[in-house]
């Protein structure tokens, strides 16, 4: 059964169409990777899924609630079932790691402070940061910030965990560690995971299914094998890393020749 169902989703900014009639079902418990180049609309789609923006038309149904038309309280209820890890972590700089992770528990639950402390410690330990709880986000490396953001996203035991560009800005070793963490979390918590990325290695390592976006539309949706064997030219270009705008050396040479000729005439 689909936990997220997107139907005929159209998003426009200032009359420019960013997402053009998208349809997608994400099944409960699967890891869906939204793949695509820069400007393909994958982050915009993610913002629609987590209810940060409303579309021009179409529906996004999360846990049987259409978040494009529901009330604010219904949206807040849905949001409590989604944990989000933003690209830069988006940890609150004024709070320590412990307070960042504890925030959701203190505000949205009636748990006793001692229980909250225990849960926070367990979550930080799960992402390998149990010794760094007293530090502020600005005192952490990029990889640590992302892991702390994962701990914060897990605080309310969400059904859906969303990652925006988890590998961006990380070295290959730390990126691989984060991939392992995603796989481990999925195995332990049995949650639905949505990952937005353009890192192919990471995408094929963690995905159950992939959806490839190009120019605001899905060009391929399928399992790892189906995507790898796809004949779609946009998928092939992306997977085979074929550049579309190659610098034209002849044009550059002729430009400099003309420039030199003009300066000789002036002299």
């Amino acid at each position, binding site marked *: 059964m689909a936990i997220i169902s997107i139907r005929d989703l159209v998003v426009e900014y200032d009359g420019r169409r960013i997402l053009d009639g998208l349809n997608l079902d994400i099944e409960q418990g699967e890891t869906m990777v939204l793949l695509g180049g820069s400007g393909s609309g994958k982050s915009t789609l993610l913002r629609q899924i*987590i209810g*940060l923006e409303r579309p021009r038309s179409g529906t996004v149904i999360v846990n049987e609630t259409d978040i494009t038309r529901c009330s604010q309280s219904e949206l807040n209820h849905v*949001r409590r079932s*989604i944990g*989000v890890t*933003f690209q830069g972590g988006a*940890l*609150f*700089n004024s709070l320590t790691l412990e307070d960042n992770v504890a925030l959701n528990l203190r505000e*949205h639950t009636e748990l006793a402070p001692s229980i909250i402390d225990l849960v926070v410690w367990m979550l930080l330990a799960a992402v390998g940061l149990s010794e760094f709880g007293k530090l502020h986000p600005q005192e952490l490396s990029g990889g640590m910030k992302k892991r702390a953001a994962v701990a914060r996203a897990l605080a309310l035991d969400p059904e859906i965990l969303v990652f925006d560009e988890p590998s961006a800005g990380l070295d290959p070793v730390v990126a691989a560690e984060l991939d392992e963490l995603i796989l481990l979390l999925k195995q332990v918590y049995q949650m639905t995971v949505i990952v937005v990325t353009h890192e192919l290695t990471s995408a094929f390592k963690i995905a159950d299914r992939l959806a490839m976006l190009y120019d605001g539309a899905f060009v391929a949706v399928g399992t790892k094998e189906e995507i790898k064997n796809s004949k779609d030219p946009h998928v092939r270009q992306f997977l085979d890393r074929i550049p579309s705008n190659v610098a034209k050396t002849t044009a550059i040479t002729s430009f400099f020749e003309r420039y030199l000729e003009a300066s000789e005439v002036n002299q």
Partner: protein
Amino acid sequence: MATQLERVGRKTLDQLDYLGSLSIQLWVTLRFMGKALPFVGNRSRWKASVGQMLQIGVDALPMVALMAVASGFILAMQGASELRRFGALHYVIDLVAVGFTRELGPLLTAVAVSGRSGSAFAAEVGTMEVTEEIDALRVMAFDPVEFVLAPKYLAALIAVPCLSIICNVCGIVAGGIFMFFSTHLGFLLYLRYVLTSIELRDIISGLIKSIAFATIIAQVGCLEGFRVRGGPDAVGRSTTAAVVKATFLVIIADAVFTAIFYFMRKP
């Protein structure tokens, strides 16, 4: 001609849109104000409010006091140089006392707080927008107005009138020092004259102005922060805009309130 009209129309609509946004934001803030109050509200919001009060009030105290003392001297000296010609030097006391309680105290405080705290609000909220912290709050089912703005607004509502009273006292004391050195008027006698020249409604009108100025500074500062789109340069622009717009609106509001109190006072 049509383009000029179009431009004027567009600018007018932009200004109306801005005022509309300010009004809506103020309404939403007032709805959440209860959560920032002590005892009945959320403890962490009240704690944030107290922190903001220290920043807005205590940290600004030396600057506001110095500005008030300097302005008290200036007002007394300028008044004395003219009033001496008519043998009415004692009216300097009325000028300083009434001028500060009704006008200069609230206005000087508002200018100082706008420069210090209005810009700080815009920078803080703007940075939170850029680093996706505001989005993180939304997806964690928090309202950013409740979480970020309400504590700041409550702090401004308390700190600005307090600063304004201190500003009045410093300005009046400066006037007393001037009178002592220029006419050898004893300080206690000076204070007695001050108390006879000002009325309770002068103090109340000054406090009403302070509350209005605090509202403008907090709301404009945070709105500029919430409107940040893009990178760090946008935060810089929002900081400048917050100070300029808040100072401009404070002066306009001052003129409106002065006119209202003037016509209310008229027999």
